[in-house]
């Protein structure tokens, strides 16, 4: 994902949820949008495939993050780097 819109579901514990939002805000790859209770909208922007995966794992590993859903992704043609099986 070069640029994607994600929905983060936060933990029911409000302190953990607040800490998770704070951690998201500290991540330079993430823009944090509005929060609706336990759900918060974010936009993630990554520079490489490896970063892309790392970010996904990192978001899920943040204490207070319970679930991650995807709402949007930009698929600009140059991101198709290879095709074919390695």
């Amino acid at each position, binding site marked *: *994902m*070069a*640029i*994607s*819109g*994600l*929905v983060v*579901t*936060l933990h*029911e514990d409000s302190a953990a949820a607040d800490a998770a939002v704070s951690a998201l805000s500290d991540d330079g790859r993430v*823009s944090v*949008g*509005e*929060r*609706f*209770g*336990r*759900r*918060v*909208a*974010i*936009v993630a*922007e990554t*520079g*490489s*495939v*490896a970063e*892309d*995966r790392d970010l*996904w794992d990192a978001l899920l590993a943040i204490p207070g993050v*319970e*679930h991650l*859903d*995807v*709402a*949007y*992704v*930009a*698929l*600009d*043609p*140059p*991101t*198709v*780097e*290879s*095709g*074919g*099986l*390695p």
Partner: protein
Amino acid sequence: MTSSLMTVDQLLTVDRRSFVKTAAMAAATAMASRDARGYALPLLEQAPSSLAWNKAPCRFCGTGCHVMVGTENGRVVAIQGDQKAEVNKGLLCVKGYHVGLAMYGKDRLTTPMLRRNGAMVPISWDEAIETIAARIAANPQGFSFYGSGQWTIPEGYAANKFVKAGLGTNLIDANPRLCMSSAVTGFLSTFGVDEPPGVYDDLDQCDVAIMWGNNMAEMHPVLFSRLVDRRARGEKVTIIDMTTRRTRTSELADHVLYFQPHGDLAIANGIAHLIIKLNGVDSDFVKRHCNFRQLGAAVDANTAPDMLGVPMTFEEFAKAVEPYTPEKVEELSGVPAEKIRLLGELFARRDLRINSLWCMGFNQHTRGTAINCIVHGIHLLSGHFGKPGDAATSLTGQPSACGTAREVGTLCHLLPGGLAVANPEHRAHAEDHWNLAAGSISAKIGYHAIEMFKRFNTPTDQGGDVTTIWVQVTNPGHTLPNLERNFLRKKDLADKFLIVSDVYPTATTSLADLILPSAMWVEKNGMYGNSERRTQQWFKMVEPPGEARDDAWQTIAVSKALFDRGAGMKDKDGTWIFHTQGRDEQAIPIWDWAHYYDINVDERLFDEYRQFSRHKHKDLAPYAEYVKSRGLRWPVVQQPDGAWRETRWRFSGFDDPYVDKGKDFQFYHSVTKDDKALVWFRPHEHPPERPDAEYPFWLCTGRVLEHWHSGTMTRRIPQLHRAMPKAYVELHRDDAAAIGVLSGDMVTVASRRGAVDLAAWIGGRGDPQKGHVFVPFFDETQFINMVTLDAYDPYSKQPDYKKCAVSVRRKV
């Protein structure tokens, strides 16, 4: 990748990047706020942009999420979850949001190729069509079609008509035989008609969700998010994960019940036992709406008893499940007795709504029909049926396994609309719809998938009477069990001929004699039918590459070539079975690719097919209704005001228009012809192969979050491929220690049928029980199906990929 992303940077101007980021945030905010009253954002497709946005169901699994596809300059360039879609409400999983990239691997097949002197050489479409027609005309009884739950509905209908009306055989089957035919036999045995009575709405209203061997969090993540969302809103939803290995679903479950293979039969019978012991039987419901059944005696040792069974009383049923005490079930399944009691107590409670969910864990099972029947039975027995939230729901793995294979009937024993080859009245209905002479449709059931490929891989003079197979939209060279026996022997049989229509080179094309390049997904018009009886439609948005063409066109073009040769393909008036004319009554040559899109062939085929749907009350609306909607769940019945109304809960009087007025429930396709469903007793039995001293581990195979089925699409998406590049074997840490293996070490997993080398993963994403191993099947560089067992359920003919005996040894 670095260089290509620099190209992205170069191409994405600041303005464009800003636009994309704004669009991404708008979509995410709309999703995050969907429960926030009064909050609304403009939908993305309404925003000013150079992109054209159109709806389509996702190409991958059977959930049936809708995506909005953004196209620009003839390419798919953006995907967003469809906020208007009831199924996914704007959400997508990690595969779904990469779906557009699946079309752009650079090794797309773009021209027909024929094997000559051992090498594949490009040929023209005309030569390809003539080659197939000549092969079929020479021996129509030796020809079989093998299709897919990824066929669109019109594609499947065209293939089915080609074989059953055009050739007068039933030699067609499809890969749902490998993934869900046990669900079909379970529904047929219980309700007399296929497909789930309930819908996804049950997830929104249940109090308890039971995952029966179903890793829903990773395999159907958008559906699982409905449960997670409810928890996020403060609702109490108890999730119970019954599994043979710890997964992401287990991590989010309230109770995790680890069971031994085939233990599910004992558990379900144990629940039935407890429902009776705890006075949990809904006596009124059972008395008015259920009969009891068990299997009769087998004719001989090699033949399973008749699927219709023999009647039994409630008292006899109670006696049959009496031995399944919690302690006995613990002995058979490995699940502690107190957990069995927990399940029984939940089912015995009338104040809870319980949704059972399953997928391949039940279906890829040599006792698949039995376990499907038993779970329907415990829902019926306890009255947890037919109310929102009370449902037994089978999920599917392919986008149109229901819509195409089950409803269109692209299996060797079915006709369209749920009609059966074996039923003379049903054949007569089909002959009438197709304008065929009486007796044209063969009464002889064709070969199911395993039998078809066994015969294809057997010398012709030794009973291998299948000499030509045409495969469309699937990859049996990767997905059949016991590949050496069921696929690879073909390479030494010179008179066998394999035709493969596909979009990429695959394990199947590697042995093909003729390869046809196909259009995929939004490169063509299409319709799918998902797991909750929802029929969906989309329009072609971009052109296929090179000379790739629609699968339905390929079928129609070969049909015309056969008709021209005088080799069938005509109705009783001598008219070609796919004859099509415009409003001016002039024939439209849809066999000619140049004219294929002169009309909407999908619409013509679908509106012809839907006439079949009324016989079994699976009514479909006219094509135009699906253009307007994000899918409709059948039966879709026209109202007095002309509107078309879908049905959510079948057999329930408050919703199903086919239930007689005044009745609360009516099973109107009842096996016993008395509007009652059947509660079956089916005993626990051991599987055909169990671990022993030589092969001491249980092997289970399955999928991973990042890849879909044999990986031919998702392994070409760099983001997904890099995230999960290779298959692996999950081992319990004690077993790994015992054989001296660390994570990352190469091991050989072997069975009596074959072996494969894999890297070990210990304490990874999934964690099997001691004595068990798990291997995902997506990786075509490491075929776990060289190892799997091809024993199958005697009724559904579905093989068991979830359990066989293997050895695991460190690779030296």
